[in-house]
């Protein structure tokens, strides 16, 4: 394996291939100083880090992770910190929800011996009440097994001291007693949960509109920071901030990010906010962000990640050589810049320095060339056989497959709100995004050739929330502020047979001409893949042969490779025509079949048709068109059943 490949650190939670501590040491130390400052002064601070694409921003987070992630048993005499790494691949209107979800998932991530950061918080909070020395974990285990009442009393005291609301108090209790962790994680993430799960948890989920849900996410994040306490400072790293932008003139993204940092800065007392951005974006932040937000973003400094000088470059190459799994030729040990030639060095250091990514890419190319050394001993640099388009083809196939495997109904709203505008603008250039305060439950408003189309993503699994959402949409549709309203549902989250009111509201909305669309999981995975790749491109994290692939290049490539499925889905939303009416009728039937099968997973086709008031032929057509959702069994295809994806099945089994 080429020891110089993997020039991009995609996720700081994964261990990097190698690390040279002296590279960007002063920036790393500034981060650590920042955390100590927060711990000592009990005031939140922020640090802005900027560098060129490939300068090592995510690698720096990875180093922070290995330094900060607690791996030793919790003890009262050990200074600890918490870590959250947020890749801002979202819409500016969902920024707090993204932070909330990431924070909760990072804090539930097992670090060592199945302990997670939430456990650390718990131990630290308990330690404040119980004056103890040494390791806390054996004591906690003892309390859990031998004195659960005593442990509950301590949790009650923590909740009372922190003035936690009821829901948070109950959540903390579940954490302490290791109960319903899976549902608890989903609840803390803000996912819609079925009534049965909420009843098990003894928690509530308010039925609110979009703005309120964002506000609720903000309050949840602040409350969780408060729960951690001043003795456990939290480093929150924001990466790929550029991905929030929909275009070069997008001011909403800058504003949303500025507000996020300012709120975290002013409303918490234990957070070090580390924002890592590209240098070009830092320049825009300086000139275009609100002065108050900018001051907060840099309250602990504004520091650059410089490209590497020769000595640093040499050390990086050496570490890669040392970490190589394959035996390398002896010259790799003796020549300090092996496998680079003098001309490579002259070119790479033409301005005196080079980014780690460019350096490693050149090394990787040279390494490959050396492997193909001709029998005569002459090293010939083989011309690159891959084009940027080939690279995108390959990357795309891999990422779509990954997204298809991991796609979950609770991601649907975020995927659509982030990616749908991008694709809609490719399908219909000139289409613009709008907002309307009087339509809080309309997630997106697209203004194009067909007028003003509102899109409401209704994927709640909690029927009370779904009913409330339909009721509000019904009154908002009556305001006549849209030319068209489209409701997007996820067929994997059917309306429960008992949710009569939800069905009623949906039927009313249909009567008013509201369209109903069910995207296939393949479409959602494609959209998810697109937003991930485009976010990488906007943040300089998508590189081919050492050069960053520009977002425009990716968009052009994608426009040429737009799948029919996806195009049809987008057209179904933004265009009004006869076919769209037909597919919307399909959607109504899909919804009805789904509801029916939620009650009885396998059904006779004739019986189903009778119950739904449709003909068997009509039903068969819809089933054939939606083979990803339903299937027919039996010689004459007389048994109808719902397709359950592996991921869904695993989830329901583990529940």
């Amino acid at each position, binding site marked *: 394996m080429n020891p110089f490949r993997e020039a991009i650190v995609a996720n700081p939670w994964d261990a990097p291939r190698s690390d*040279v*501590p*002296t590279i960007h*040491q*002063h*920036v790393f*130390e*500034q981060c650590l100083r920042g955390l100590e400052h927060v711990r000592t002064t009990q005031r939140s601070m922020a640090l802005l880090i*900027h*560098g*060129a*694409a490939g*300068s090592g921003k995510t690698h720096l987070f990875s180093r922070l992770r290995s330094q900060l992630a607690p791996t030793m048993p919790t003890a009262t005499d050990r200074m600890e910190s918490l870590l959250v790494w947020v890749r801002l691949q979202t819409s500016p209107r969902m920024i707090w929800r993204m932070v909330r979800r990431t924070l909760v998932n990072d804090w539930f991530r097992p670090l060592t011996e199945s302990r997670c950061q939430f456990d650390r918080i718990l131990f630290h909070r308990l330690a404040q009440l119980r004056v103890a020395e040494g390791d806390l974990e054996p004591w906690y285990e003892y309390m859990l097994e031998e004195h659960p009442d005593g442990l509950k009393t301590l949790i009650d005291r923590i909740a009372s001291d922190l003035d936690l609301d009821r829901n948070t108090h109950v959540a903390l209790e579940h954490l302490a007693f290791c109960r319903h962790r899976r549902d608890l994680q989903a609840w803390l993430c803000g996912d819609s949960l079925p009534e049965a799960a909420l009843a098990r948890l003894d928690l509530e989920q308010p039925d609110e509109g979009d703005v309120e849900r964002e506000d609720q996410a903000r309050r949840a994040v602040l409350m969780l920071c408060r729960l951690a306490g001043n003795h456990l400072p939290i480093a929150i790293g924001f990466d790929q901030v550029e991905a929030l932008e929909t275009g*070069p003139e997008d001011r909403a993204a800058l504003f949303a990010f500025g507000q996020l940092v300012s709120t975290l800065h002013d409303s918490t007392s234990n957070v070090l906010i580390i924002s890592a951005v*590209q*240098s*070009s974006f*830092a*320049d825009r932040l*300086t*000139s275009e962000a609100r002065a108050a937000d900018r001051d907060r973003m*840099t309250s602990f*400094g*504004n*520091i*650059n990640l*410089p*490209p590497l*000088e*020769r*000595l640093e470059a040499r*050390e990086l190459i050496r*570490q890669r050589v*040392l970490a190589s799994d394959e035996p390398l030729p002896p010259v790799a040990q003796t020549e300090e810049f092996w496998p680079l030639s003098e001309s490579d060095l002259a070119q790479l250091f*033409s*301005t*005196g*320095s080079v*980014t780690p990514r460019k350096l490693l890419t050149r090394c990787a190319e040279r390494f490959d060339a050396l492997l193909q050394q001709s029998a005569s001993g002459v090293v010939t640099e083989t011309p690159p056989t891959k084009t940027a388009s080939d690279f995108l083809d390959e990357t795309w196939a891999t990422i779509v497959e990954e997204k298809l495997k991991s796609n979950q109904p609770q991601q649907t709203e975020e995927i659509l709100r982030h990616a749908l505008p991008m694709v809609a603008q490719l399908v219909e250039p000139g289409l613009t995004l709008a907002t309307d305060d009087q339509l809080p439950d309309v997630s997106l408003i697209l203004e194009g050739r067909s007028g003003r189309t509102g899109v409401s993503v209704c994927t709640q699994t909690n029927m009370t929330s779904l009913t409330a959402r339909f009721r509000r949409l019904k009154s908002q549709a009556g305001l006549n502020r849209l030319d068209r309203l489209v409701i997007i549902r996820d067929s994997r989250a059917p309306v429960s047979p008992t949710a009569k009111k939800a069905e009623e509201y949906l039927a009313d909305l249909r009567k008013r001409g509201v369209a109903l669309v069910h995207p296939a999981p393949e479409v959602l995975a494609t959209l998810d893949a697109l937003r991930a790749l485009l976010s990488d491109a906007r943040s*300089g994290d998508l590189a081919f042969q050492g050069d*960053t692939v*520009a*977002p*425009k290049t990716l968009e052009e490539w994608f426009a040429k490779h737009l799948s029919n499925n996806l195009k049809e889905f987008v057209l179904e939303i933004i265009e009004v025509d006869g076919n769209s009416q037909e597919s919307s009728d399909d959607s109504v039937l899909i919804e009805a079949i789904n509801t029916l099968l939620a009650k009885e997973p396998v059904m006779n086709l004739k019986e189903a048709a009778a119950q739904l008031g449709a003909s068997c032929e009509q039903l068969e057509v819809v089933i054939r068109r939606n083979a990803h959702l339903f299937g027919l069994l039996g010689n004459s295809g007389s048994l109808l059943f719902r397709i359950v994806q592996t991921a869904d099945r695993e989830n329901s089994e583990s529940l």
Partner: protein
Amino acid sequence: MPKIKVPPPPLSAADRNDFLRVLREAEEPLEAGKVAKLAMTSRRPAADEAAAVLEQFVAEGALKAWAPKTGKGKPRYWDRDLISVGSAALAELVQHSSQPVSAKEVKKLCKLPFKLGDSEIASILADLAKSETLYEIPAKTASSGLRYWHRDAVEFGRDSLLTQIKDKPPLTKSKLKTAVNWLDQSQFEELVERLTNRRELYCHPPLGKSKHLLWSRSPPAPEPYLKGIRDQLATIVKELQSASVPQADLRRAAVQMLESVGISFGASSSVTTDAAAVGREDAVDLLKLMHIVDPSVDRGALVSARVLRTAAKIPKAEFDTLVLQLSRQGKIALHEHDFVGSLSAEKRDELVTDGHGNYYVGMALRLGQGDS
């Protein structure tokens, strides 16, 4: 009837071999009792019985005996010996260290499942140095011990020297030596020669009254050397002008004179102008200007090319040349803009370009390790 205690059957060859297997798979030396516990033998042997078998293996050379872990502990056994395991571990540690480490530091950093004494560490390090797996680096001070690294003393001297003289004006050789005073004179001379040959260090002719050669990380700027001649030339030109020598004759004579000493005027005019601007006495001091534009540059802030260009009030080509020059000298770090294609021509003009398709959005001062 009294019960007769039947002695256990002797351990089979397979049992004995399993002792060897346990120790080959072990990650550290084990006591005989532990070996007896872990081995999959036909019966559970007593610790003493296991110890006897293991001692026999030691005598045959199949195992090595290790000293007990503590004073009260029992002898341990392993298939590896202390020196070879210790040697590999210490070599690995020093190989990965970013700077030389003393035997004391090695002892502190080394995490081994067994203890290595000071004398053992010293002897292993000396052997590694003898085999040139590691190199000895002279002690930093008289009281601290020898250090070890994966590169030789001269190479380490190179790193130290280049880092320490980075932002300093040209230095004499004796001053240069103080940066690496732990090197002996011959090593120091070898280092200077190596760096000069590699053009990582430049020798400057003596300047002013001093007769000493000077050394720096960048080639000498010609202006200070030409200052005396310029002053003399200014006086003579004035005298010739008052003697009615035509301007054209003066220019011709001056050009001929300069070309006769090896200064060519064949370069393109723009390059000549820009290069000249860099060293001009009245050239803009961009480093100073960066501090004025943003006082936090000392702490690592980036200064936008657009903002600095506006403040410098000089033509674009001249500004870009100055910036690139400072970058090559290691005084500033340039930050590349990756999506230049998405910018308008006007916005692109605000950036610094090297003329090879690379554009830079801003620059930051190069901060040394200790500057933060």
